[in-house]
């Protein structure tokens, strides 16, 4: 069993990764609440954005900042285009159908990525990764800080947005009852479009951070969404703050299980073990999300 000293750096990696899990989870929950779509293509869209950024920097010689912006924009545009094309025809179908449709997008993007970029070893290092500071013995780089901070910031901002802005109110109304909301004069399509776009931009940002914290690899980034889905499930696809906490928790458990070599190999199960336990608990005790404010 490793010592406390040994565990310390894993807290840093766990929190950084957890922050980005939370960021993705929040993006998925917002979209789910506004449109009823569990977007399983969240990771693939971000991955492709990151690949495009990589190519722009390495093949086209673009400045890094603009390439990163292109990555985030790509996430927004593709997700929005998907939402506009497939959202309305699928609006009346049940959530499973909608989720599986996004899986289609994920697989198309995954195929496109292996076709365009093949799986050669690539890396993209954000400038923030090259600088860091020490907390005790542990080196923390700024990308890790950004991962954690962005996770928290996006959660807080989104919760406030849903609560206080007109558009946010419309999204919440939409989540409650799409038909009644439409009958009340909320332009359903436009509000949904806003949700798709916002969620897409988050997927681009998450893709960029993940490509740095985890690695620039199509399959990894596409399926990393699974941990975020687990965080969102723990929050029952409703509460943003529970998603934040769950994402952090999953990241931490995953990281802290790593140095214990006897269980290290099985740590990929962590998101689901945690989600299963949480859901079993919830089915007995009602809900984790007592914070109505986040709804």
């Amino acid at each position, binding site marked *: 069993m*490793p010592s406390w000293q*040994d565990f310390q*750096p*894993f807290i840093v*990696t766990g929190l*950084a*990764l957890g922050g980005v899990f939370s960021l993705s989870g929040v993006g998925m929950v917002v979209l789910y609440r506004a449109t009823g779509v569990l977007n399983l293509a969240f990771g693939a869209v971000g991955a*492709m954005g990151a690949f*495009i950024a990589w*190519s*722009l920097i390495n*093949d086209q010689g673009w400045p890094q900042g603009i390439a990163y912006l*292109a990555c985030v*924009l*790509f996430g927004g*545009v593709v997700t*929005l*285009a998907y939402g506009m094309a497939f959202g309305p025809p699928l*609006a009346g179908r049940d959530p499973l159908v909608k989720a599986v449709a996004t899986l289609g997008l994920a697989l198309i993007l995954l*195929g496109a990525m*292996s*076709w*365009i*970029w*093949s*799986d*050669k*070893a*690539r*890396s993209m*290092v954000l400038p923030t*990764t090259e600088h860091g500071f020490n907390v005790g013995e542990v*080196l923390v*780089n700024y990308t890790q800080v950004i991962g954690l901070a962005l996770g928290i910031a996006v959660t807080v901002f989104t919760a406030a947005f849903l609560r206080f802005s007109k558009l946010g109110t*419309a999204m919440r109304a939409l989540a409650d009852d799409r*038909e009644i909301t*439409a009958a*009340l*004069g*909320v*332009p*359903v*399509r*436009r*509000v949904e479009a806003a949700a798709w776009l916002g969620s897409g931009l988050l997927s681009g940002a998450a893709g960029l951070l993940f490509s740095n*914290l*985890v*690695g*620039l*690899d199509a399959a*990894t980034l596409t*399926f990393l969404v699974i*941990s975020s889905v687990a965080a969102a499930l723990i929050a029952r696809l409703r509460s943003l703050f529970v998603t934040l906490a769950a994402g952090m928790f999953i990241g931490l458990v*995953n*990281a802290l299980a*790593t*140095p214990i*070599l006897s269980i290290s*190999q099985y740590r*990929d199960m962590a998101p689901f073990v945690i989600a299963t336990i949480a859901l079993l608990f919830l089915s007995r005790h009602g809900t984790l999300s007592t914070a109505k404010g986040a709804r």
Partner: protein
Amino acid sequence: MRNTPISEAAITGVAIGAAQSGLRPVLEIMFVDFVTLALDQLANAAAKAHAMSGGQLSVPMVLRTQGGAGQRGAAQHSQSLESWLTHIPGLKVVMPSTAADAAGLLASAIADPDPVVVVEHKALYFRREDVPETPAPVPIGRARVVRAGRDVTIVALSRMVPEALAAADRLAGEGIEADVVDPRTLIPLDLETIVASVRRTGHLVIAHEAVVHASGFGAEIAALVGQEAFDDLDAPIERVGAPFAPVPFSPPLEDAYVPGSDDVVAAVATTLNRDIGRRTPARNAQGGGAMRKGASRIHSALAVAVLALTMSLALAACGGDNGSTSTSADTGASTGTAAPAETTAASGPASKCGLGNGEKATGQPIKLGAIATKQPGTDFSEIPRTAKAYFDCVNDNGGINGRPIQYVIETDQTDPGQVASLAKKLIDSDKVLGLVGGSSLIDCAVNHKFYESQGYNVIDAGIAPECYTTSNSAPVNMGPRYSSDGAVQYILKQNVKKIVFDQSNVPGTGYIEAGPIALAKDAGVPLESIKDNVPIQDANSIALKLVQAAGDDGGVVLNFTPPEALKILQAAEQQGLAQRVKWACSTPCNTDFLAEALGSSWDGQLFVNAELNLPSADGPDSNLYRQVLKQYAPDIPLGSFSQMGFVQGRIATDALMNMKGDYTPETVNKAFEDVKDFKTDILCKPWYYGKAPLHIPNNTDRTVTPKEGKMVEQEGCTDISAVDPDIAKVRKIEQEQGIG
């Protein structure tokens, strides 16, 4: 023309009888208000006759009447009662709004086999309009788009059509373009045209003169549109009509009662104003609406532009990637080191392709075949394609004593059934004489027994354990286990106190780790063997784990594909762990692409086992290898994949040239088996086949390290330690057969 007493019931009854007996009567009821008196005949007789007689009777009758207010007719002579009639199945109801439509619809109504009620509006009688000499019939059930617009749909009936047009003109002055639709026929209703318009505009206003609340026909239209195009509506549907009150006789009151263009404008303003994001007061609403619509158009144009831009970027990126072959090296058991030939190629003398006489071989072809895996993410086809490039060169230089080599390349997608049938196809149908140049993830595992039974001695680039441990396969490369041995062996020389061996958690890890475990045990250094799931999702944690597990003065040996190894190495560097331990890697890491991605901080810090010489090395075969690629396969990058293909092609050619007698499967495979002491500067030691239960002819290798974005030699040819039991067996065989 018959004048009748004023008895609406009698008139209607007579007309029904006339119609049933074959005439086409047109009866006139002076005011729609008194259609009440004929309702029994109309609803119970005319409308039902066809259905109740089982189709034997039809009532091709037209009831023409007029309604509407505005002519000071008071409550009993001003009503709009069309929705009473639309509720009776079997009746058709039309309401013309122009003179031409009135004539055209009447003509169609007379021709119609069913009873049709034509409801005109008395106020329209005083309008002047141009009508063609012979008005064309207007089909029943077809709406007319009177005016095209994109911001709001106005569906107007009868007199409200000119009112809606007046409203549209005013709205146009404020930048709002209204689509005005006149249904003309209420039953059957042309819903399609209305819905199509609503889909374009997202807003709907319905205008009729009848009482709007409590069952005006607008309610029906609204309900149908709601059902068909709910998602296309950006705001609730607005209806314009008279209040729920009798039509007043007092002229000022009647004027106030009758809806007009002002009401239509107000309704349009209301529906546009309902859109979220518009906070302007109602009176200014139209202007604001125009702006908002304008803005949304700009937004969609922007979205399209951005989409187009991103797509073109993706394509450009793709093109750039393809263009720069010098930066490509694929994943696999072994990977290529890529170096542009122009800059690094040494200029020493080169070997020759086959006879090297420059004459094209024209004799009967000698057939050879290969199976290579080619699927997204794993493409080994470069290996046989390079062998083919070499064979092409041989064929241009006299071939195999005048006979050209015909080479069949099959690709598989790691489907065992497919791989088994490909092997049968090559041997049974294509009748290839030998198998050389193949590199499949599963070919050895699936087919080694088949090859044994057919007596084929396969020359390949191996991945699966069966390629190294069975009697009928001899690889030119070393594969994951012996290359991991090499990496462990090198790091042991660095006097590490502990080794952590990490590999991807896939089937076959037990076979691979056996070598490193044996080596470490022999050296008295503890070795911890770890497996990590791929793709790696938490490289930071894994790097930390490995470094912690290895401890101070420890060593970490990785056996991963280049992208996965890169993740771990990069995470280690980012956390300042690169210097804490010694790092080594099995042969897949031997690629310039990795060296480039790692950057200079790993120069001399990472030691990679290399099963082949550097692609840029100087030597007769290395020089020929680069020439062949340049001339025969310029699209294939320099690297260990193409080196393996080249070496296999050379071994096979050499064996075929030296054999005597007929070329049959038996003689060719015997010649392959007899290969002994094949020398090439691409391998450390002469290559051999021989009869043996296992083949690891490549068991002496080099170590490379990254330097300025390229891999360079760190240690020259060194034997893989015979502490690995498999290597021990091979060395024994070598000794017995006098090889090596």
